[in-house]
């Protein structure tokens, strides 16, 4: 083993260890109302702040418990902030806000957050429901405790396929007589 080869192998190891170029997507940093919040003030405006600047054309829509969607009357994007004006204040209830934006990296992103309004204002047809049907669960705590289901893993089949393909390919490559 001469020095040249050692240098070559060192180079290989370096490349191996370097992950390729990457950058983060633009995620939602914070919002008003925030995820899982119960708001006691009237809500007429949603403000979403993202991690980086976002492109024009972002949108957000609200869905109430009954499944009705509510489109904001105007949406303004400035820098990293998307501001949606709703018009009249929201009636009490649980809401899911679904947002769609384009990050400056050109990647479309979407997501949602939940909040509850308890400002004492009810919509015309809706009775005040003192007991919420279900607690709004911020989606960060939504998961059950780690449960390991014992599902059989197909890894052994994958290995079998790999063995088979190795046999075929290596056989095919090395079986025939080499070119003279």
């Amino acid at each position, binding site marked *: 083993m001469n020095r*040249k*080869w050692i240098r*070559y192998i060192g*180079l*290989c190891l*370096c*490349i*191996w260890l*370097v*992950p*390729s*170029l*990457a*950058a*983060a*997507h633009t*995620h939602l940093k914070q919002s008003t109302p925030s995820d899982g919040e119960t708001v006691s003030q009237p809500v007429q405006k949603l403000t979403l702040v993202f991690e*980086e600047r976002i*492109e*024009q*054309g972002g*949108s957000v829509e609200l869905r109430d418990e009954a499944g009705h969607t509510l489109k904001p009357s105007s949406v303004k994007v400035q820098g990293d902030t998307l501001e949606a004006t709703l018009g009249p204040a929201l009636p009490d209830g649980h809401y899911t806000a679904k947002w*769609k934006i*384009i*990050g*400056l*990296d*050109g*990647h*479309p*992103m979407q*997501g949602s957050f939940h909040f509850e309004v308890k400002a004492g204002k009810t919509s015309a047809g809706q009775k005040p429901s003192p007991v919420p049907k279900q607690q709004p669960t911020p*989606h*960060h705590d939504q*998961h*059950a405790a*780690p*449960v*390991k*289901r*014992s*599902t*059989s*893993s*197909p*890894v*052994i089949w*994958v*290995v079998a396929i*790999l063995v088979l*393909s*190795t046999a075929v*390919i*290596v056989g095919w*490559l*090395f079986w*025939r007589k*080499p*070119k*003279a």
Partner: protein
Amino acid sequence: MIAWVQTLAETMAVTCLALLTGGALLSLVADDYKPVVILPHRLFPLVALIAGLGSFVPVLRLVLFLEPDTGCMEAVRLGVFLSRTGQVWLGLLVVSVLLALFLQVRDVRSSKWTAGWALFGTWMLILIKSWMGHVASVSDISGWVLQSVHLTSVCVWAGGLMVVGFFTVDTARWLSFLRWFTPTAIGCVTAVILAGWGLMGTVDPEYVASWVLPYGEALLLKQWMTAGVLVTAGVNGGWIRRKLARGEEVNPLPWMRAEAVQILLVVAITAWMSQEAAPHTVAETVQAVGVSPLFEGLFPGKWYPGLRAEWQGYLLGGLLVLWALILLAMIPLLYRQRRSAYGAVWLAGLAACAGFVGVLVWAYGG
């Protein structure tokens, strides 16, 4: 679906950029320092055009994303003319059309001036394309510089290999060609490494944890695939070269092609990766896009929030990794026994699969 279209288009665009770079570079080199290369006349205008058009898919993706909310015309206005991606793509398209026209009118090989201008135009395309990418958008100018260095190096390396590998008719002056090409290639590889290191700040910090995401998996697969490229490059730049220097009869072309094809596979994996969610926080990204189907398929029901690599499948995983290494070691054997160079592509691909599954099994159990 569009993800596959984008992968294909992006791979084609980078291939075309590499061909342009390689063609222009080779035309600039004096005849004494290159083998006899015959470049098809019509190739270059076409390739210049594809380099610009192929990069349209990310913009199309934006338009399709906006369309349901805003309607068609507005989506085009926002996506193509107002978004950063769209604007940069328009710039890319203009330069690529100009370059295509130029290469249509004047043959690259006709004079050193033409070749020089073609190389300059190609480099402009590379710079603009790097600006379109994702690193440039989130970091400041340094991200763009590093991305440009990365893409330029890949184009010089892969372009040289492709043009020489596929269009050489006579390998008479091969050694004097290798005398400058091997150091150039090594320089390119080094530049790729350094650019990678430079961008480590924005790279996914939870490397191991990110294997539950498509991005992290593609990265792992890419690294295994790169191992195969380097082994093949070792055969090319070391072994074959030494044999030629000793005056033995060898045909280096098939092995150059094999290396070029392997680099293209790596480019394809990268193209696929660049549209996936890069995980700066793995847990958050999993919340947003879910665990990769591949991970779910290999380890059904395994994932839960807070899952960490347990490094418990070392028996099977280790065996698979060992097996991958043996497959890689068979590539020089292939050469030694004067067997098909394309076998290297197969062996490298197989090694990448085995190594990839091996590392995952090693980390997450059988």
